[in-house]
């Protein structure tokens, strides 16, 4: 592993791109697997939001919409203040793979983190892990 400015993950899904696209780009889809409740204005520049029980929330800005192949958005690094303009960019790429879909997600932009907030980031991530792992466990248990 090299210096991590980006994260990349690929999963093979046994469902056609159109169905995966709906799970990624509709409020119903996003609310079913990503957040607990989601809203999305699906156009470049449109806003989107994920909310989780417990009040955790993330705002996104839709950047790329190329149905059913590419969906990109920017969102905040949650240790930064609400009005900080820095964002990471997340891009989902959907490729047909047999009767299913090869889904790749790449998140870039971690190298732009600020120099003066290490303690805030450290504490924030420590807290974030605790919260998100707890919620994920609850979600999987309920499924």
């Amino acid at each position, binding site marked *: 592993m090299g210096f991590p400015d980006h994260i990349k993950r690929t999963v093979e899904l046994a469902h056609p791109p159109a169905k995966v696209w709906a799970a990624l780009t509709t409020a119903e889809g996003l609310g079913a697997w990503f957040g607990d409740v989601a809203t999305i204005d699906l156009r470049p520049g449109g806003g989107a939001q994920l909310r989780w029980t417990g009040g955790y929330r993330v705002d996104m800005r839709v950047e790329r919409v190329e149905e059913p192949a590419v969906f990109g958005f920017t969102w905040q690094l949650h240790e930064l203040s609400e009005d900080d303009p820095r964002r990471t960019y997340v891009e989902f790429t959907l490729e047909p793979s047999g009767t299913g879909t090869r889904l790749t997600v790449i998140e*870039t932009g971690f*190298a732009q983190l600020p120099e003066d907030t290490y303690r805030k980031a450290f504490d924030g991530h420590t807290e974030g892990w605790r919260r998100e792992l707890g919620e994920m466990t609850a979600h999987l248990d309920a499924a």
Partner: protein
Amino acid sequence: MPPDIRASADIRASADIEAIAEQVFTALADPTRRAILAALASQGPVTATDLAARLPITRQAIAKHLALLAEAGLVTAEPGERRRVRYRLRSVPMQVAQQFLAVLARDWDGPLGALKEHLDRGA
């Protein structure tokens, strides 16, 4: 505009950065060293004697921890008045470690697993 994706990193620079991050995490693993860094962050450059007065440990222990922190590049020693060496926090290695933490905190495996489950359930 989406930022460019840096497809390949310089291997050698990456190895250096890994080494820096490892030193930072080793330094932060000790509560006394975290207390020393916190004192330097909030109060600015101070001498080992000042630190010993503020923290519940001996000056000898402080000196040992400061040496490790200096080795990791997290503090620098600078000459002060009457030959009293003062220690200053150096945040550059922290920035490197911070990027590791940010990447670790973005957990894609969980959400992608949830997506797969969601699609399979609906099939």
